[in-house]
């Protein structure tokens, strides 16, 4: 339910019977009484199935009606990115028998099936074999531009898990096969929500930020040589010290960005769960696409331009306080290098949303390390050992002790940072995204108590279904109605699965397990 808000579609593929699956569906609020129509496809021949699929589709698109029911056990989902489905306002559900599914997965029918399934809010396939589970996943993968996630807990789900883009295994009651075959595994279905909405989202957010910053930093670093080429006769003379070039990406700027990639959180975890639609930017590829990359690159180029030309203007005629020259290659190099490291650090400081102690350590530490290494490498000692490799002897000391150099560095930093700052402020002010709004909310109410998102619990009361889901063999019916097993176990009521008590019946066990909301999203 909550994952539905995050634009994640949930499909259930189960080996149970129709009635069981349907009851589970109602208890999970996947099927609801207020749904317009629940289509059941249970034809036995290809033609029947085809006819049923077609009529269902026509009905949704405005014409006839079919109804069906199905069972629920496992879910597999995909996110829809075509606009067509959005225009279907009414809610439909599709339930398919395994037998019919076998027909529906034939090449001539699979598109119909897929289209129909995408039009429905919920799809439940019952009596599905493991092979068919994998086939359904495959179908979605192949024809839809969506990412699929399969979650299951038994050995019969392994093929499905392997077929999907992301496989999640539940480790526990039915053994470890599913968990071993999967990309992620945890112990309860309900953790899926957290996996997706919290960790998945954070991961996407961090990755995009990281990439953007990395490109920016490297463009700023490298393109300075492009500008310098105009002044050095295009002889590929490097602006920086060789050692700086070696260490820039490894030592001076790697740790802060690593910290950002590991720890950054734009919205804290409770709010990520409360507002599932925060998940949408990830699905729609909003945070890092061609346009973002282009902007990053442009920013990097602009920074490199300023990084070069401001010191150029300042240095071309400057001299030191005591008159000795200053407009030499090495002092220029040190000035630009220092400006670059400072600008890069400030930029990552501005892009970090979540400053933990580690971030602080890495950012300030990198700056300190830069200065330490700079002075160490341009010291007398290193020069004494390897004169040809450390020709920058004395430059740092002479250069950075001049006040004019620090003024140049200050100006460069200010000019490089201010435009970015202004633009982001304007963007947040004028066009705040949901993320910005939630962050603002977080800021203003810092100590908001965690309200558990049990939206499904709230809605559950509307289900009027009473379920005595035990329809697998005839004999049991009499057993139950005679009341003989009332003493040892209580009949499970699908209406309130959490309160399902100690029951030895395998049906109740399954119901218990299915109580956790399982949603998969992409």
């Amino acid at each position, binding site marked *: 339910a909550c994952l539905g808000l995050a634009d994640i579609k949930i499909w259930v593929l189960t080996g149970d019977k129709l009635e069981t699956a349907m009851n589970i569906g109602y208890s999970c609020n996947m099927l609801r009484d207020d749904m317009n129509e629940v289509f059941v496809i249970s034809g036995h021949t290809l033609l029947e199935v085809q006819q049923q699929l077609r009529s269902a589709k026509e009905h949704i698109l405005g014409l006839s009606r079919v109804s069906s029911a199905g069972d629920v056990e496992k879910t597999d989902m995909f996110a829809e990115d075509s606009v067509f489905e959005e225009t279907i306002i009414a809610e439909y559900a599709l339930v398919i028998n395994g037998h019919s599914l076998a027909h529906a997965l034939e090449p001539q029918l699979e598109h119909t099936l897929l289209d129909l399934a995408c039009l429905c809010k919920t799809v439940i396939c019952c009596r599905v074999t493991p092979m068919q589970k994998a086939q359904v996943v495959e179908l979605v993968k192949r024809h839809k531009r969506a990412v699929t996630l399969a979650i299951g807990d038994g050995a019969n789900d392994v093929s499905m898990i392997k077929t999907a883009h992301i496989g999640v295994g539940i480790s526990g009651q039915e053994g470890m096969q599913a968990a071993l075959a999967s990309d992620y595994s945890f*112990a309860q279905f309900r953790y899926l929500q957290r996996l997706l909405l919290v960790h998945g989202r954070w991961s996407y957010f961090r990755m995009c930020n990281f990439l953007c910053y990395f490109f920016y930093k490297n463009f700023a670093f490298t393109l300075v040589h492009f500008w310098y080429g105009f002044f050095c006769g295009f002889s*590929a003379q490097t602006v920086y010290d060789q050692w700086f070039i070696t260490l820039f990406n490894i030592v001076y700027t790697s740790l802060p960005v690593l910290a950002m990639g590991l720890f950054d959180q734009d919205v804290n975890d409770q709010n990520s769960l409360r507002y599932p639609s925060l998940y949408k930017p990830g699905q729609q590829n909003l945070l890092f696409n061609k346009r973002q990359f282009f902007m990053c690159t442009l920013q990097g180029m602009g920074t490199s331009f300023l990084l070069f030309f401001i010191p150029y203007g300042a240095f071309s005629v400057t001299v030191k306080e005591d008159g000795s020259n200053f407009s030499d290659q090495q002092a220029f190099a040190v000035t630009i290098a220092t400006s670059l490291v400072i600008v890069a650090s400030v930029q990552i400081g501005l892009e970090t949303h979540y400053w933990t102690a580690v971030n602080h350590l890495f950012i300030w530490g990198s700056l300190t390390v830069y200065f330490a290494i700079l002075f160490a490498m341009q010291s007398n000692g290193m020069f004494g050992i390897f004169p040809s490799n450390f020709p920058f002897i004395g430059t740092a000391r002479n250069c950075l002790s001049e006040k004019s150099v620090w003024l140049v560095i200050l100006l460069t930093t200010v000019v490089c940072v201010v435009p970015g700052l202004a633009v982001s402020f304007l963007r947040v002010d004028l066009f705040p995204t949901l993320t910005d709004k939630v962050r603002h909310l977080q800021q203003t109410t810092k100590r908001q108590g965690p309200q558990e998102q049990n939206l499904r619990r709230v809605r559950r009361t509307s289900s009027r279904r009473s379920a005595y889901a035990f329809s697998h063999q005839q004999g049991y019916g009499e057993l139950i109605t005679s009341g003989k097993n009332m003493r040892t176990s209580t009949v499970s009521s699908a209406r309130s699965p959490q309160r399902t008590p100690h029951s030895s019946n395998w049906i109740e066990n399954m119901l218990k397990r299915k109580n956790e909301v399982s949603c998969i999203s992409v």
Partner: protein
Amino acid sequence: MGKEKAKSGSLARRPDNSAFKQQRLPAWSPMLTANTVLPFFYFMSLICMLLGVWLLLTVQSTQEIKVDYTHAGECNVCFEIRKNMSNAGESCICTVEFSIEKPFKGDVFFYYGLQNFHQNLRRYMDSRDDAQMVGWKENLKNPSIYCEPFKKDQNGLPIAPCGAVANSIFNDSFTLTYIDSSGTEHKVPLLRRGITWYTDKNVKFRNPKVDNLTLAQVFEGTTKPLYWQKPVYELDPHQATNNGFINDDLIVWMREAAFPNFKKLYGILYRANKPFTKGLPAGNYKIEISYNFPVQYFRGRKQVVLTTLTWFGGQNHFLPIAYLVTSSLILLIAVVLTVVWLKFGKNGKNMEE
């Protein structure tokens, strides 16, 4: 939130419920709000403006005069002579005259400047041997391969100092004379020492040392660079601290400039005696130039620069103006942001889903 109720049997594999592993580290979550950004912008604008004004005032108090002598007057003759390489041994002296309206108060610095000379070309910059210049004996007799083709002369003797940088040392020399109102000529004393960085003079460049040998004997077995008139141990025979590799002019030249138009320090006014105790007085001056350095090969120009300095360095208008421009731009942006925020931003934000 960690796993509160793990399935039985897997409690042991539960990840730690520590703040680090559960990503609950205490953190500061800053946000760009109007309260922080707008004052910051105004503050930065103010700072930049103050700095710009201060720097501008400082720079205005310096004085500078440039004299381009590539073709000036008599020097044209020398220019023509230098076009021919075979005349390299001939000396040519020319004189240039100029005048100063306002006296230069304080320390005056004398620079020679070159235009269009790319000391920043990559192969040029690589063509030196720092180990040789710091006095290592094995490099003295066997310079680094980077010095090619200025590593050995045609007789196979190693060149000291090797490389293109040293080879192309600037060898014009200047004598400045002041002509006072009564027509007497006073030679302007220039301190030709102390024009380098301390680290250069004392650490980066050292003469090779052998006890009980004179400098000339230490350099035995090496030869002078191709374009030099004198070998390196005769650059200043009268002062041992200015001879050999630690010669000030050589050191100044070896510190390659970053751009094609540069100036390098030649001397500092010696102000012990009249009439130069307060600096350079106003009046007429003439420079006698021993014109050696040929520039027509690279269409360059030569000049002499006299300037006074402040803590900020000579006449450098770029930085103060850049600061003022930046300040005004930031102010403009700040005003725009304030207007935008006041009109739109104040209430558009905290919508809940």
